[in-house]
């Protein structure tokens, strides 16, 4: 059981955090779960994405030339072609279809097929160990990614046809890359004993690749594996046997040199992490996706429910906060209202006293004005008295009407007096109530009574 943890950044660079390998005493699921749990518990940080690698040995590959450009159509056609050519029903398989080369009337596609129980077993083991798989990749493709990342720039651009090989105790994982894309993969079981043995396996692979006619001839070979696996292999002899240049992918000269060398000291030199390192190198470039659609749907459903739960929680929290805020505001309003009412109760008697003072001032001033007006009325009555006229009675009534009783020499004088009064702006009406002429001795006199209605001071 091998587990590697890396931290990748937006710009594509990666930093290795941990590389763990645990020997498994058996091949049953329980043992695998326990071994994985052990590895997971020793990880420095929780993982955000989890990628699984399936050995190429667990896969079947088929090539078809199909008349379509549409990927969905290509997939449907490929599955139709596959039906009946596999050792198990297509319904029991997980498939990944990858177009090779340009799409057109004859599109060449690679179909990777895995028996569904194998994939489900991997998913189950991961789930029981607390990991949810983001994707499952083929080990050959991951190894190719790793070799591509390690291709030294001093040797120029990577060759067009390229055989990548990873040597492990279980056997060889092989793949052919053309223009940065995996077009052929193969797994050879059994440990590699000698250089001749390795040469034979390479030659068989190259012949099988050539027979499939899926790409250009191989120009370069790169090999990787546990550091112990290389000790006995003389690369020069291998090169001369194969007639191809061979480059060894050395972890010590890789882009992860610093991190890898620090960690690799703690590892068994027999263990190869090439496939896992390949996943770290370019997880986004991996095109063979073996995670079943149902698992993706289940993951999407879980993510949706998680988001919904989070949203509901956020909405509830926001509502609760809002209601608390409203409650606090309402409480504050109630408290302020109560204080204001207390203040009103306290201030009202004091303000009423002040209002009474203001009212008394107003009352006195109005009384003064009225009084002055009344005095003016009385003065106005006597101001226009003509010679020979006398007043016997001058009365100011409650409605401010003035009653005048007096004597005038004759009616002409009385009329002149009344006319003079009417000219005055203070009077609204000048009414003659009575006029009676009397003759006593040689002189005559007219007794009269006038009622004068003054104008209001404001309308004058």
């Amino acid at each position, binding site marked *: 059981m091998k587990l590697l943890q890396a931290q990748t950044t937006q710009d594509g660079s990666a930093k290795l955090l941990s590389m763990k390998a645990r020997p498994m005493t058996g091949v049953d699921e329980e043992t695998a779960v326990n071994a994985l749990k052990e590895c997971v518990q020793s990880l420095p940080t929780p993982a955000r994405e989890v990628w699984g690698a399936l050995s190429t040995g667990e896969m079947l590959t088929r090539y078809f030339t199909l008349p379509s450009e549409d990927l969905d159509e290509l997939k449907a056609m490929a599955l139709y072609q596959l039906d009946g050519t596999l050792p198990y029903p297509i319904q029991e398989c997980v498939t990944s279809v990858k177009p090779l080369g340009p799409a057109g009337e004859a599109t060449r596609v690679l179909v990777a097929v895995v028996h569904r129980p194998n994939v489900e077993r991997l998913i189950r083991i991961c789930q029981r160990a607390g990991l949810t798989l983001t994707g499952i990749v083929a080990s050959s493709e991951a190894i190719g990614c790793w070799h591509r990342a390690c291709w030294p720039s001093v040797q120029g651009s990577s060759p067009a046809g390229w055989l990548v090989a990873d040597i492990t105790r279980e056997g060889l994982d092989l793949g052919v890359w053309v223009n940065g894309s995996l077009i052929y993969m193969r797994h050879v079981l059994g440990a590699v004993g000698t250089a001749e043995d390795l040469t034979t396996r390479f030659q068989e692979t190259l012949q099988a690749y050539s027979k499939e006619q899926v790409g250009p001839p191989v120009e370069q070979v790169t090999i990787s594996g546990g550091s112990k696996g290389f000790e006995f292999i003389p690369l020069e002899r291998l090169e001369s046997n194969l007639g191809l240049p061979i480059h060894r992918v050395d972890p010590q000269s890789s882009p992860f040199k610093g991190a890898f060398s620090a960690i690799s000291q703690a590892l068994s030199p027999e263990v190869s992490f090439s496939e896992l390192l390949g996943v770290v190198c370019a997880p986004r470039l991996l095109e063979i996706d073996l995670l079943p659609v149902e698992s993706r749907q289940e993951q999407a459903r879980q993510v949706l429910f998680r988001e919904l739960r989070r949203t509901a929680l956020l909405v509830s929290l926001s509502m609760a906060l809002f209601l608390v805020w*409203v409650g606090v*505001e*309402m409480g504050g*309003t*109630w408290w*302020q*209202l109560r204080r*204001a*009412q207390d*203040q*009103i109760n306290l*201030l*009202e008697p*004091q*303000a009423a*006293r*002040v*209002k*009474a*003072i*203001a009212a*008394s*001032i107003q*009352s*006195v*001033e109005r*009384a*003064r004005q*009225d*009084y*002055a007006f*009344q*005095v003016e009325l*009385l*003065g106005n009555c006597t101001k226009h008295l003509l010679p020979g006229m*006398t*007043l*016997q*009675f*001058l*009365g*100011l*009534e*409650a409605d401010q009407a003035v009653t005048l009783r007096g004597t005038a020499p004759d009616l002409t004088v009385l009329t002149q007096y009344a006319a003079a009064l009417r000219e005055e702006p203070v009077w609204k009406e000048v009414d003659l109530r009575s006029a009676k002429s009397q003759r006593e001795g040689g002189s005559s006199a007219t007794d009269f009574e006038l009622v004068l209605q003054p104008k209001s001071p404001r309308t004058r």
Partner: protein
Amino acid sequence: MKPNRSLTNLGIALGWGLFVIVGVRLVDSGFGFWKKQRETLSQAQEQVKRLQGWLDVEKPLRERQGEVCGSLGRVSGTDLSWAAVQGLQKVAQEQGVSVTQLQPSRTSGQGPEVLHLDTRIEGRLEQVSGLVQRLPEFLPGIRLDSVQFVPQGGNRIQALLRLSLSLLEH
């Protein structure tokens, strides 16, 4: 879909609908109550401000009352009759007019208590006239309800005055 499943879904939908309607009504009425409370608070605060404004002008108003009302502003209750009689006598003395009759009476309705003074005075025309003119100086707020001037022969005159005076402060 089985019938019991449909009924369950219908029940859930109705429950949610009822919950939403009741919730919206509750929130709506809560906000309505709060809005009303805030309006009441605003009115109360304005009233406090107005009352505070009255208290702020208390001092200048008292000073003004002192100027306008004089000693009569501090008179209360039964002292009003005596204050009025004293004021009338004082101005009569100053004008050289004799007060021949003085009849105070009181009325009190819903407003402040009012003192009525039926007064008969005699003197020369200018003396009586001067008394009538100067009365407000000695008795601030006095009102002339009615007056009759009756010549007495020569330059003398008799005046029947009905005056009224009310308490300025309670």
